[in-house]
């Protein structure tokens, strides 16, 4: 496993990318929100790949952590200043003001709190669902996400079906967009660095072992449930954080269409990973960029039919192009991935 990644640390490439990430919102000031959404896609795709690609557990319910993160961050930020029940029943009537300091403490600590809250929920949900394998796991987690959305939309204390309205960014709105962009970007860079390290460790090897053959992994002495829970909790931590940031980005959100958006973001993250290539470090990132571009194009040119076009994209990707871009490149150019193909063997095979 280590050998495959041997070529990886390319300080030059990573440095150039980092500089681009930092100057991007100033280069394209009109697209700051778009770029922030792109980061959201990249992060959720990478976290989905932690369980889906690297560990072989295809969850359809990771959106549960996104929605829960949104609500956890919002409730935390509000409860620092006001009573949550009173606040939500006013539906952002304007009687509740936040000072600058209250906004930023709410934003930062709220998002981090959302991350930890989601990690803990991942432990609980995972304990109940990790005995399920394959399609049952996918359906079970999908069920968790749908049920959570329906229950939250009936929970008056957090605003019921109307959702929550959060305070607007204090100060210039364009600055606010840049601020949100960097909140996403920092989370994304931290996640990338973390995964880049994690996939090379023994822990990463254990994750791959679970994917390849769980029974054998268990026989080799790997406590599989523990590994699965920790991996999912780590994924949930990051999804929770971006959920919290999204809550402040969107300002007002409601449970079924925005927070627990099972058929939008919940399925998009899977498609991103499949487009780019499952079980690779760069696959989800490339896939997310590709998907975001396709999505924006269909949104502008197929007005009204954009959802049909996206459903079509999902079906085509899954049916015809499941190995994704990285998988396709791996078969075309194996030497780029540090895989040595014996020319003699190839000739013998022919």
């Amino acid at each position, binding site marked *: 496993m280590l050998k495959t990644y041997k070529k990886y640390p390319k300080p030059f490439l990573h440095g150039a990318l980092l500089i681009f990430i930092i100057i991007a919102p100033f280069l394209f000031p009109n697209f700051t929100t778009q770029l922030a959404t792109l980061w959201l896609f990249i992060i959720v795709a990478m976290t989905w790949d932690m369980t889906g690609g690297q560990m072989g557990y295809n969850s359809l319910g990771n959106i549960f952590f996104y929605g829960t993160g949104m609500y956890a961050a919002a409730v935390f930020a509000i409860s620092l200043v006001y009573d949550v029940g009173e606040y939500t029943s006013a539906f952002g009537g304007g009687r509740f003001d936040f000072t600058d300091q209250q906004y930023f403490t709410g934003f930062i600590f709220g998002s981090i709190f959302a991350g930890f809250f989601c990690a803990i929920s991942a432990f609980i949900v995972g304990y109940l669902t990790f005995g*399920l394998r394959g*399609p049952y796991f996918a359906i079970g987690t999908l069920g968790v996400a749908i049920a959570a959305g329906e229950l939250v939309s009936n929970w008056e204390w957090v605003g019921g079906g109307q959702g929550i309205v959060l305070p607007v960014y204090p100060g210039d709105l364009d600055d606010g967009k840049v601020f949100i962009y960097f909140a996403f970007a920092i989370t994304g860079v931290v996640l990338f660095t973390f995964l880049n390290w994690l996939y090379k460790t023994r822990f990463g090897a254990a994750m791959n072992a679970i994917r390849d053959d769980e029974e054998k992994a268990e026989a080799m002495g790997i406590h599989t449930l523990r590994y699965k829970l920790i991996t999912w909790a780590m994924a949930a931590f990051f999804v929770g954080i971006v959920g919290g940031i999204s809550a402040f980005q969107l300002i007002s959100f409601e449970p079924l269409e925005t927070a627990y958006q099972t058929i939008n973001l919940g*399925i998009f993250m899977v498609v991103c990973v499949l487009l780019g290539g499952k079980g690779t470090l760069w696959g989800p990132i490339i896939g997310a960029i590709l998907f975001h571009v396709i999505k924006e194009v269909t949104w502008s040119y197929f007005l009204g039919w954009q959802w049909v076009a996206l459903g079509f994209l999902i*079906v085509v990707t*899954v*049916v015809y192009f499941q190995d994704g871009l990285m998988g396709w490149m791996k078969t075309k150019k194996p030497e780029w991935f540090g895989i040595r193909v014996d020319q003699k063997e190839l000739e013998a095979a022919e």
Partner: protein
Amino acid sequence: MDQILGNIGLLIEFPIVNIAIIIEGLMIGALFALAAYGLALVWGVMNVKNLAQGDFVIAGGYVSWWLVNNIGMHPLLGVPVAFVVMWGIGWATYKLVISRVIERDLFTSLLATFGLAIMMAQIMNLLFGSDTQSLTLDMPVLEFADGFVQLPMAKVLGVLMACSLALGVVLFMKNSRMGQAIRATAQDARAARVLGIDTEKVYAFTFSLNSAICGAAGAIIVMVWVIQPFYGITYSIRAFVVVTAAGLGNLPGVIAAGLGIGAAEQYGGHIFGIGYQQAIAVIILLLVLIVRLLQQRRNRQVLQ
């Protein structure tokens, strides 16, 4: 909380309400069982878990609804017409998508049909609008026990049609040559191929049959209930609940589980309020999965 206790109190105080709820639940449950039987068929024969099941149901409903409103067809005729139309749509779906995912791993078929479900729901939304639709039959409503128990003849008729359709399918599977081939393929596809059964044809037939059953169920649902383009996913989930609880190839189990989930949903809707009805269907799925999981864990096995 008070409201919930009050609702439970009402059930105890007036036992007749229970009967009304159970009858209502069993009627809806019969239709769930129909969709679930189709799912079990496809699942068992070609090992494809069809998440677009509910959207086939809704599509069948819209076929009937559209024909009644535009051609002036009698609503009851909608059931056989939807059966035929959805047979064609199912066959096309099989040829375009499903035939390419049969040999792949299970998550592929799940995701492909999920994409299909999104596509179908959106197409119906564009064609028919997002309002809830229904057809009304001019039929008398029978009343029992001082009007506490109402029995609309339209619903009774719908259930009877569902039952006769199910009976027809079961007899077909038991007695016809094709039914025999389908059962053989479900047992061992390779052996069936060796013995000269064209499994490709069997697969196409099974999927079309499933789609047609769903379509007929949808045409019944539009008469006794309401349909809406995005209701599909809950029917899919209910079908999954029934099949997961009952297991494959267990027809009495499918019927019992279908009726059970129908009644449970009605009770839940009555006790917790109508807003929770969707949530209850999903929570029942989770409960069924967890119970099955604990059963398996006792034998140190997993659900796969």
